[in-house]
């Protein structure tokens, strides 16, 4: 009796032409999708509760535009692109430089947030329990800041490994994914900034 084989004669040609997306790319894209939904829930909560606080302080009393911090965070996205580019062309020195710049810009942003929160808590007496503004503000900005922290931890690990002489150019793919995550964190900040500091602050 005859029997067939799953691997046909033209299998080799078929296999050679067979191209599929990279699994890391797909994974990180859908991680970003699910994170975006998470963020949008907090954004919606912020918008729903806008101007619904029963007691002060209200946004217009206490919020100041974090212009410098925002510029820093957004430009860190550019810095990481340069770093990536340098790594692709195997220029390790330039990579280290731009990577450090990215980390510093991100760290400054985090520092600025910390300073802002200290002012809000100790001078303006706005805590998460004070009113709806406090609740939504701290949770939305805090959620974003926690993502910045996670990003910074990973960035730092890469930096330290590089300094220790680890051949980081072999990990180009993973560095790329990390940079995508960082871009995502920055993009979220654009939305958070718009919602909290532009829509939420009537002029």
């Amino acid at each position, binding site marked *: *009796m*005859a*029997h*067939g*084989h*799953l691997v046909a004669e033209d299998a080799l040609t078929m*296999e050679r032409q*067979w*191209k*599929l*997306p*990279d*699994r890391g790319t797909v994974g990180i894209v859908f991680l970003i999708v699910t994170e975006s939904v998470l963020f949008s829930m907090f954004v919606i909560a912020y918008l729903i509760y806008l101007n619904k606080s029963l007691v002060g302080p209200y946004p217009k009393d206490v919020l100041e535009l974090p212009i410098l911090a925002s510029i820093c965070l957004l430009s860190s996205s550019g810095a990481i692109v340069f770093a990536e580019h340098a790594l692709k062309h195997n220029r390790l020195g330039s990579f280290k430089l731009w990577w450090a710049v990215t980390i510093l810009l991100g760290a400054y942003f985090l520092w600025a947030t910390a300073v802002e929160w200290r002012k809000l808590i100790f001078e303006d007496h706005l805590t998460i329990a004070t009113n709806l503004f406090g609740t939504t503000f701290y949770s939305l900005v805090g959620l974003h800041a926690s993502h910045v922290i996670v990003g910074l931890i990973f960035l730092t690990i890469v930096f330290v490994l590089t300094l220790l002489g*680890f*051949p980081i150019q*072999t*990990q180009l*793919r*993973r560095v790329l994914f990390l940079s995508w995550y960082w871009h995502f964190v920055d993009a979220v900040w654009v939305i958070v900034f718009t919602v909290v500091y532009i829509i939420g602050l009537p002029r």
Partner: protein
Amino acid sequence: MTDELHHGEAGERSEGAHIQLPAPTFWPMVFAFGLTLLFAGLVTHWAVGVVGFVITFRAALGWWHNVIPHEEHEEVPIEPELRPAPILVETRSVVRLRAGEQGHRQRVPEEVHPYSAGLWGGLIGGAVMAALACLYGLFAQHSIWYPVNLLAGVVIPGMGSATLEQLRAFNGLAFIAALVGHICISGLMGIVYAVMLPMFPKYAPFWAGILMPLFWSGLVATTLNVIDPAMNGRINWLWFVICQLAFGLVGGYFIARSTSIKTMQSWTLAERAFVEAPGVRPVREDEEK
């Protein structure tokens, strides 16, 4: 970098007797355990959370060690005794039906009865029905005009208040009204039969002859007090149903006897559009021979 192959880690990388698979590791499990403890710290004691953090941290290191610089693999021996049985070619041969072939039913029905057969069947059935109804009139009211007058009540409003005597007597107007009405309805129902018969299962005339009259009787029974109050008060439902069944069986029989014609629905679009060009029409089995 081998792990950049598009097949992922466990792709085609068998070298002779071994196949590379991702190596087993318990660190993801430990990581999950630490993370759960970290959250459990919120509901139990902060110390639990601290332990959870430590475990999570250690497990993260372990996990990283597993994938950096390179994902760990294991060479799994190919076991010849685990080879699947060969896939056998089925000896029964398969013939694929094509549009337009005999027996390829795309839509039911494939063949229909001509409308003329429906019309004639309806008229013959109507005649039998009328005869039965008159017979009933003769038995029950000693007058064949009784059912005729009742039927005329559909269009002649005065019939509702007619006495029994008037109903038994011949009434020319009522006769013509009843005759025209009966012929029209019988003919139309016959055409409906002709359309519907091919859609019934086996013994179509029988099923159609039983089911259709029953449905029709049900419809009449629910609406009769609106359209013909005279009849509604005096009707004998048993005889009514018997007459309907007679119509159904006789009409169905005559329609089914007619030679049926093929619908074009199993033809291809080009064929139905009567496009005449080589290759448009599929070559059918019988023509190949």
